[in-house]
């Protein structure tokens, strides 16, 4: 019966209540700093830059009070993939990648296996970047309730309304999507049980018989979609009946407020990111 329990597996950035500095920051501050640091992580190629980033984000995680074991707990099932991909990178990427800050050098060669200091750097840097980004997403989603995030996103997008971007509607879509994830997961469970009780083979996955797999999936997905669309129509009707007319001139129940601590956090985040990007070619290794 464990196959039918889907709700347990759906954790899109579970919010962990707390009272740290990071919990108390405005969601807009967190989003901005998150975006800046993500970009820095994406553009850092050297050992030094990634080590600095790793230390900085680790400090933030410790400050937020999120248990580190919690952050890594989701990784276990993916460990074989991570190892396999790293090994592939290490063995076959030697010639294609010139290492940062070092002359390319072959460390080991056997047949077409070719390990260079470039591929070693590639593996270590991608793993470090992975941990940095894992920390960053946890910092954002584990310390901020989803609703605050969508409100923050809406208010950050609102300046773009001048050029025709429907900021309010976009955040509405986001909120609805998140709201209905548990509901539709529940619905999927119901459909799964209903089909299984009629003798549908929903669990067996043929490796190469993908038409069978598709038909098995279609048995679940088609009713789910039909149900989702029907619910959406109902929601539209309910909103129209309550004279909902979209974003213009609408005030909000949740009001976000910037405190001095937000300005400080933004300033530090900006200074850090600009320095890291400006310095990215100066690091020795």
């Amino acid at each position, binding site marked *: 019966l464990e196959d039918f329990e889907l709700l347990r597996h759906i954790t899109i950035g579970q919010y962990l209540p707390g009272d740290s500095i990071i919990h108390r920051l405005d969601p807009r501050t967190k989003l901005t700093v998150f975006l800046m640091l993500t970009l820095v992580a*994406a553009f850092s190629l050297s050992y030094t830059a990634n080590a600095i980033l790793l230390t900085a984000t680790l400090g933030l995680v410790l400050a937020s009070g999120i248990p580190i074991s919690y952050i890594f707990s989701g*990784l276990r099932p993916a460990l074989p993939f991570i190892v396999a991909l790293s090994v592939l990178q290490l063995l076959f990427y030697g010639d294609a990648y010139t290492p940062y800050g070092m002359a390319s050098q072959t460390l080991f060669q056997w047949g077409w296996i070719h390990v260079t200091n470039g591929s070693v750097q590639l593996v270590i840097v991608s793993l470090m970047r992975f941990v940095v980004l*894992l920390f960053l997403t946890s910092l954002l989603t584990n310390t901020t309730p989803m609703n605050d995030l969508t409100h923050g996103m809406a208010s950050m997008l609102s300046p773009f309304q001048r050029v025709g971007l429907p900021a309010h509607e976009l955040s509405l879509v986001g909120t*609805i999507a998140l709201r209905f994830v548990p509901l*539709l997961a529940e619905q999927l469970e119901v459909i799964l049980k209903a089909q299984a009780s009629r003798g549908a083979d929903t669990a067996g996955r043929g490796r190469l018989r993908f038409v069978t797999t598709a038909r098995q999936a279609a048995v679940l997905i088609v009713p789910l979609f039909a149900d*989702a669309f029907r619910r*959406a129509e109902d929601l*539209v009707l309910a909103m129209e009946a309550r004279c909902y007319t979209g974003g213009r001139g609408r005030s909000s129940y949740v009001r976000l407020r910037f405190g001095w601590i937000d300005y400080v956090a933004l300033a530090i985040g900006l200074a850090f990111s600009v320095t890291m990007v400006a310095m990215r070619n100066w690091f020795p290794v």
Partner: protein
Amino acid sequence: MLLGWTRLGFIPVPTAAGNATIMHVPAIIGGVMEGWIVGAIVGTLFGIFSFINAVVPMFKDPLVAILPRIFIGITAAGAFFALRRFHILVALVAAATVGTLTNTLGVLGMAVIRGYMPLNVAIVVAVTHGIPEIVVASIITLAVVVAWRRVETGRQKAKM
């Protein structure tokens, strides 16, 4: 009336419960049923979900996880609206194929560019995963859209 937007909120949702092979199908369906803008939004949401939930280094990179996904719905909608006059079922299969290819090639292409995967490994993955994904995506897209059209014509026409 922009209330049609609320309907979009529902489309990305089945991704949350689906498995990896059919995760991109909602973006295709969104693009086919509501146009390329919707397809792009659903694709972006799918990308963000997969970025936040990622447990493999490759997908923890926004350039791999989010960027290519924006285009799934756009290319799928393009293929669908280009071929719709020809034959609706052909157009649906084409949209599913093009959308899936956008996903597979986009993600693997970015993975190669960003150095997560050597080119020859990516090609093997593209062939072994791409083909089943195309078949599965085509069947599901076809089934969902046809089923929904039947529901829609049976009831009153939806307000959009």
